[in-house]
């Protein structure tokens, strides 16, 4: 994989639920948004194989992507962004209520086997979703005006098919306006 296709997010120390510091672990790989989009438009199956990661047996596959772009529209539960480095291809950043494990599993940072049980691992999903809802989404909604330039990183389930709307719908874990 070419160096420009992936990057590494910063690698903060991870703290176990017990409070014991687990030390630094390898940074997760994320894919650059234009690369994933290009691959998706060419061949969704091949794109998933190359850029997504799976959780468990038969589990959902996720993309963890980072990119930049400009806001083209805002709605009740999403902000649509035209991605830099593409031919105006649009992705959505979800701003509505967040459910499920998209961020927990989508980053690839967290492993069920490092937690006491599924209940604790599931509770983590709810807590992460609340963090995104309280820390990431409010400033994103506040500053998202049409034409605003931003950098983003987010997670999403691999889509079943590419429809007429945005090619990806990310749960943003980071959004910074330039």
């Amino acid at each position: 994989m070419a160096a420009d296709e992936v990057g590494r997010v910063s690698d903060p120390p991870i703290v176990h639920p017990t409070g014991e510091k687990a030390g630094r672990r390898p940074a997760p790989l994320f894919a650059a948004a234009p690369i994933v989009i290009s691959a998706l438009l060419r061949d969704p199956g091949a794109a998933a194989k190359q850029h997504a990661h799976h959780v468990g047996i038969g589990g959902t596959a996720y993309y963890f992507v980072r990119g930049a772009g400009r806001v083209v529209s805002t709605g009740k539960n999403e902000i649509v962004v035209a991605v830099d480095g593409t031919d105006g291809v649009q992705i959505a950043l979800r701003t509505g209520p967040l459910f499920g494990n998209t961020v927990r599993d989508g980053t690839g940072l967290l492993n069920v086997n490092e937690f006491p049980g599924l209940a604790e691992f599931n509770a983590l999903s709810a807590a992460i979703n609340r963090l995104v809802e309280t820390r990431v989404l409010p400033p994103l909604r506040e500053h998202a005006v049409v034409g605003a330039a931003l950098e983003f990183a987010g997670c999403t389930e691999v889509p079943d098919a590419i429809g007429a709307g945005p090619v990806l719908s990310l749960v943003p874990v980071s959004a910074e306006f330039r």
Partner: protein
Amino acid sequence: MACASLVAGLILGGCKRADPSASAAGGPPPKDSKARRVAVVVSTLNNPWFVVLAETARDRAKELGYEVTIFDSQNDPAKESAHFDNLVSSGYGAVLFNCTDASGSIANVRRAKAAGIPVFCMDREITANDAAVSQILSDNYTGCVALGQYFVAQVGETGRYIELLGLVADTNTWNRSKGFHSVVDRYPGLKMVAQQSAEFDRSKALEVLEALLQSHPDINAVFCGNDAMAMGAYQALLAAQKADKVKVFGFDGADDAVKAVAEGKIAATVMQFPKLMARTAAENADKYFKGERNFPHRTPVAVELVTRDNVAKYGNYGRR
């Protein structure tokens, strides 16, 4: 050949000469007679879903060349404990295990481990990380997040509903309930008017809902932690002439529930894949016998929402 049908609690036994050529790991099963005997200990055989789980585990282990016996715990931790006493003293080589109690069953697994018998959990979790070799578990929480979202789409953002819980000692019960509530509780107009255990049992669900309908006759929906309870709930609603007004949601992907979804009797269920879980547990045991020790402790298995729109894709406890 010594058949294990003498063991107390035996319901179904499989005593078959090993077929080394069937081994998935590429070699014959161990020649040691102890290691060639596998016990399948299942929470209950009074529910078709668990029959499928147990029989698939048995059949896959037999294909891999092992002698297999199924033990039915009848949802009774005491019976389960007695089964472990028996299988430890009888010299079984491994246990494919579906527990009755997430914490209470840990002692049984540890007892087997101390006797050198590896345990491979299927579907139901034990809440210990140092006892079983592996745990192959449905991703119940994620399934009920999807079910919760469908529930809101079908029932709307306002309404009154009842939740029928499964066995309170089973973590699946709470993982399902919490996944569902992680979505539905975000809609303050949706009021849960009652939450009661029906112990994953169809008859119990019928009784419980009949009683609850007396005090809550105006509900819009019933969320059930498994399909057996969903079918019992549907029967109660039918008897109360409310089946066409109250939407029922289940979980499991049991054949009768999938059929009920197709017929519009039940709004949705979530397909688990018991055959996949059982086969994987049996194959892990086979690999363990052959020297593999590097197993992920817990492996989630994906589940899928089944609605009237996609029900044609499902049946026979999986995808068609």
